[in-house]
């Protein structure tokens, strides 16, 4: 099951993957595209990835979660063009004990943000475009007029 998905994410499918009669608690996380960022109105965006490494990092994160907690986990990240409200990332973690389910779910989203090589280009209502930089004060890199002509 690839962790990167070009099609809309379906949390129910991830839940079904991790559910079993032994695991009664399922914690999930869904990250959806917001309509604003840094004070600007977002129209749409594109996620691009260093795909083979992103798949590998997602698999390593899932393996680390299952090694650390008694959980079954599923993790998918959308790539390509997304609209406001679309799910960008979906995570499900099932365990006998809800502590483990919550902790594993939280671990996974934090590690995805920290380690998985995925980038986001936002298209704003004012026509500008920017690569999102969570480490920058404004959250974006300097707008690049030629960015729209390139495909990451």
């Amino acid at each position, binding site marked *: 099951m690839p962790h990167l998905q070009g099609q809309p994410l379906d949390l129910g499918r991830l839940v079904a993957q991790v559910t079993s009669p032994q695991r009664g608690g399922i914690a999930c996380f869904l990250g959806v595209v917001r309509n604003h960022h840094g004070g600007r109105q977002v129209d749409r965006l594109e996620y691009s990835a260093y795909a*083979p*490494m*992103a798949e590998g990092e997602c698999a390593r994160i899932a393996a680390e979660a299952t090694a650390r907690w008694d959980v079954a986990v599923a993790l998918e990240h959308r790539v390509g063009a997304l609209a406001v409200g679309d799910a960008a990332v979906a995570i499900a973690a099932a365990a006998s004990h809800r502590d483990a389910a919550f902790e594993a779910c939280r671990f996974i989203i934090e590690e*995805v943000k920290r380690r998985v*090589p995925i980038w986001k280009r936002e298209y704003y209502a004012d026509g500008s475009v920017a690569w999102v930089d969570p480490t920058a004060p404004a959250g974006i890199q300097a707008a690049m007029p030629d*960015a729209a002509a390139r495909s990451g």
Partner: protein
Amino acid sequence: MPVSAVTTVTVRALLFAGYADALGREVVTVTVPAPATVGSVVAHLRALPGGDRLPPRPLCAVNLAHARFDLGVTEGDEVAILPPLAGG
């Protein structure tokens, strides 16, 4: 009588997102003197036109795994220069 062989390492450097925009390409074949490190590959890229828009110590990966800046690289390695990650 020993000779000092001039040896080099050639790697495939990958650029993504804003860094690809900066250098105007996504793949650069980089040849640097041996022994080579992630850092020496980055230094080479930063000397290219547009390379000054790369930070001195960007996040990097070698052969699909995150790599420290002082990690050695060898012939044929894939060295990826990663802009700030924005997944999740």
